[in-house]
């Protein structure tokens, strides 16, 4: 697949034209088979945009109600003050019964409607289980072509927030004072150590200080237990106390984000590529299980092939589709 010339649509996305960004996001959400080629084309073009290469993709995860949306809002405001543009993807769960959703994160974000440098899109999980939506990955890529920083807010379902590590350059885990569960998960190694830890709702100094101290302890235990993200062991996870409602600690958070982004400079491309590979494999194996993986030659083969295809310009989504078709065809032959 030759990297196509940016057409008008893509060019408009890259110039952060809101209507174009919105159309592009609508397109990547489109699940109809006939749209897949257009999605793949668009993403292939956007991948090479100047913003995408230089930008920063930040994932915010953490238990429901810790203040992820409020924090995203505060973060976006400060980033805008520093002259950086911001795209936000906010993910909320869909109702299992109806398939519908109430996308409530946006209600917590206050923004200037005339600001061309801030864009917020809500997405529903629509049956996905990893705390993200079907189109979250692609949406991040669209926004990354248009804005300096992209923030992804997950649904906040706790332990199963796994997919975010494949999407974000920097994973921020948000907790609040007194959230014992998270500490336990960290200590027990159930939860991978995030790149940055935020203790939000630190309005009450004393409680927040205690929470930060508790976290330090938990992190030490977790390090000892080897729960670091495997791709990154020389990064020391900073702990930042914030009050999203009062706006305190936000500058420190931005400093920590910048430091992590700086730290990634040499490894960023590998990290993103790893994320894409993992995303593809997860998509496939979630759909077809171990049998699917072994039918297509086992994990190592499949991984190598995925790496190769993605290098060739394929996108995770369409590759997964193709692999699915292969698997189904193979099934047909054996039974």
């Amino acid at each position: 697949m030759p990297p196509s010339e940016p057409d008008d649509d893509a060019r408009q996305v890259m110039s952060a034209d809101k209507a174009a960004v919105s159309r592009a996001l609508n397109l990547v959400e489109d699940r109809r088979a006939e749209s897949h080629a257009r999605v793949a084309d668009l993403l292939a073009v956007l991948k090479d945009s100047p913003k995408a290469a230089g930008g920063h993709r930040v994932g915010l995860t953490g238990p429901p109600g810790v203040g992820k949306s409020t924090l995203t809002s505060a973060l976006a405001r400060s980033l805008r003050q520093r002259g950086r543009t911001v795209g936000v993807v906010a993910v909320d769960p869909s109702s299992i019964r109806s398939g519908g959703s109430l996308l409530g994160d946006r209600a917590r974000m206050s923004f200037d409607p005339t600001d061309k440098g801030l864009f917020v899109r809500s997405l529903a999980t629509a049956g996905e289980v990893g705390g993200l939506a079907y189109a979250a990955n692609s949406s991040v890529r669209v926004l990354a072509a248009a804005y300096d920083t992209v923030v992804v807010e997950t649904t906040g379902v706790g332990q199963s927030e796994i997919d975010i590590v494949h999407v974000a350059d920097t994973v921020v885990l948000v907790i609040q004072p007194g959230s014992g569960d998270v500490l336990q998960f960290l200590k027990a190694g159930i939860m991978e150590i995030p790149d940055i830890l935020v203790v939000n709702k630190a309005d009450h100094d004393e409680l927040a200080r205690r929470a930060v101290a508790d976290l330090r302890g938990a992190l030490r235990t977790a390090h000892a237990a080897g729960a670091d993200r495997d791709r990154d062991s020389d990064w020391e996870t900073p702990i930042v106390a914030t009050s999203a409602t009062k706006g305190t600690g936000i500058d420190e958070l931005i400093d920590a984000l910048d430091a992590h982004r700086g730290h990634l400079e040499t490894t960023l491309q590998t990290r993103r590529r790893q994320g894409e590979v993992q995303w593809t494999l997860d998509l496939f194996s979630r759909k077809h299980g171990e049998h699917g993986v072994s039918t297509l030659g086992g994990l190592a083969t499949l991984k190598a092939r995925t790496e190769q295809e993605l290098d060739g310009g394929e996108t995770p989504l369409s590759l997964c589709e193709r692999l699915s078709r292969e698997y189904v065809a193979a099934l047909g032959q054996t039974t």
Partner: protein
Amino acid sequence: MAQDGKRERDRPWIMRTYSGHSTAAASNELYRTNLAKGQTGLSVAFDLPTQTGYDADDPLARGEVGKVGVPISHLGDMRDLFDGIPLDQMNTSMTINATAVWLLSLYIAAAEDQGVDPHVLRGTTQNDIIKEYLSRGTHIFPPAASMRLTTDLITYTVDEVPKWNPINICSYHLQEAGATPTQELAYALVTAIGVLDAVKATGRIPESEFGKVVGRISFFVNAGIRFVEELCKMRAFVELWDRVTQERYGVTDPKQRRFRYGVQVNSLGLTEQQPENNVIRIVLEMLAVTLSKDARARAIQLPAWNEALGLPRPWDQQWSLRAQQILAYESDLLEYADLFKGSEVVEARTQELVDSAWEEVQEVLKRGGAVEAVESGYIKQKLVESNATRLRSIESGEQTVVGVNKYVEGAPSPLIENLDEAILTVDPEVDANKRAELARWKMERDNGAVEEALAELRRVAESDGNMMPASIAAAHAGVTTGEWANLLRQVWGEYRAPTGVAGATVKSSPTGAAAQTVERLRNRLHDLEARMGRRPKLLVGKPGLDGHSNGAEQIAIKARDVGFDVVYEGIRVSPEQIVASALEEGVHLIGLSILSGSHLALVPEVVERLADAGLGDVPVVAGGIIPEADAERLRAEGIAAVYTPKDFELDHIMSDLIDLVDRENAAE
């Protein structure tokens, strides 16, 4: 025993009508005629800009000036409002909350100008911010700052305006947002506890004086159509308040523990269909708060028969006032002692309510109290859920509403032969006139004194002093409502309360035919999704200062439950924000909900801005209190459909919305 017809009568309750509109001068005239009709107190309705701290010249005030109440921007307005009404003899109730400190300051300043000593002033500031976040929606600042204003007002009046009721804890608005009797009791009590705890925490009231503060707390309660249960609820309030004041605050004087309350009867249940029936509902509801002598309301105001149509005219309010007068002066009610003492039935139901409410009080306290339960969205979600259950049972016919889901056939009502004249309309010139007047005021006052007063206000706001004295000084200096509030917005920031919808689930699933309808709607959306590639996405928007959230919330929940992806950002969103959200979210359909009467200004503005943003082809529907003549105009301007309270069948609305998306998709 007295002879027939010669019994001693109790003094009747205070009779009020909630009113105010257009201008201070026009409202003054209204008050004077109301007093002449035998009304015994005043109840001031302020317009939404005044309630939310904006002057008429603020863009956010567009379409709202003088609409649902009187605009009071400065001392001159307050003087005009009470011109010729001696404030030392008046009992004035002001429905004011976020800006209560400011409006009371203006009132005190106006009294001082009349030569009246504030110590003799009588009346009430509503001043209950908790229920604003939960239901009424005129809050401005975050909870902590708001609670500080609340306690400033209370602690100031204890000595300086000792006959004033500094706060009216409101359960009225909770029932209007769907609360069950248990919830109404429990959330009003936790609010009172939250306020009293906060007053205590200021350290300004000596322990020995605390009973005095407790004794000044009054309540503003609702009474719905299940009037026997409501009667028991009032008795439960009396018992529970006695318990709280004694056990939690150690108040020994029984007088200070008395549950003092005023009432506005239920308006949520008043219908657009066969509106004359509302008079009967109103009278029955009034019985709940008057029959028990031991739990009788101190003040009553009644809605009018045309509640669901629009604002009441003086005659409509007079009809309701007459209902009170007939009960108090014609009937023999006030000649008897408590009618229900010893009634096993009443006592048993009362006890049930006491117990269930107490349990919920403990639950909220366990969650950190009223403020916490507001911030976490816990209470709001409960209310939204109760309201959804209520609506569902009306839609299914499980709960009978005469003229709505039963006995709908009838002779046409002569009262609404000319529908457009059956309500009060406000002259659209009011807005522009007020802006011109405001400009004059600002030019004629001593702006140096204004600057100084504002600087002092800021200094106090940033310290922990009491905001009242600086506000009274600012009132005298000619500061405006918008200036006062904007300054404090700068210092404390603004707050958007949780909407309660995201987590809200409707407990009882539909059964039978209703379940089949929902299933059909879900399948249709599923099909549409397959054809369109994306799940249909609906933006529910509430433009302007309107705080009526029930309709928008219930539409949002229902839409989710039939399978829409729904974006709902809560109340008080500007048309600009709504369009920005529509654009960024890539929605297929926009629904606007407006009940404050500003639809003719706001709906076209949204539509215009949508066209400018290239979203001219996204269908827009509107709902709320929209008179038919206005609905016609809106449809002529491209609004796809207009819904009003009579459209109680949410399934029908959903079916229409799906049709709209389907049609638009087919047209593409």
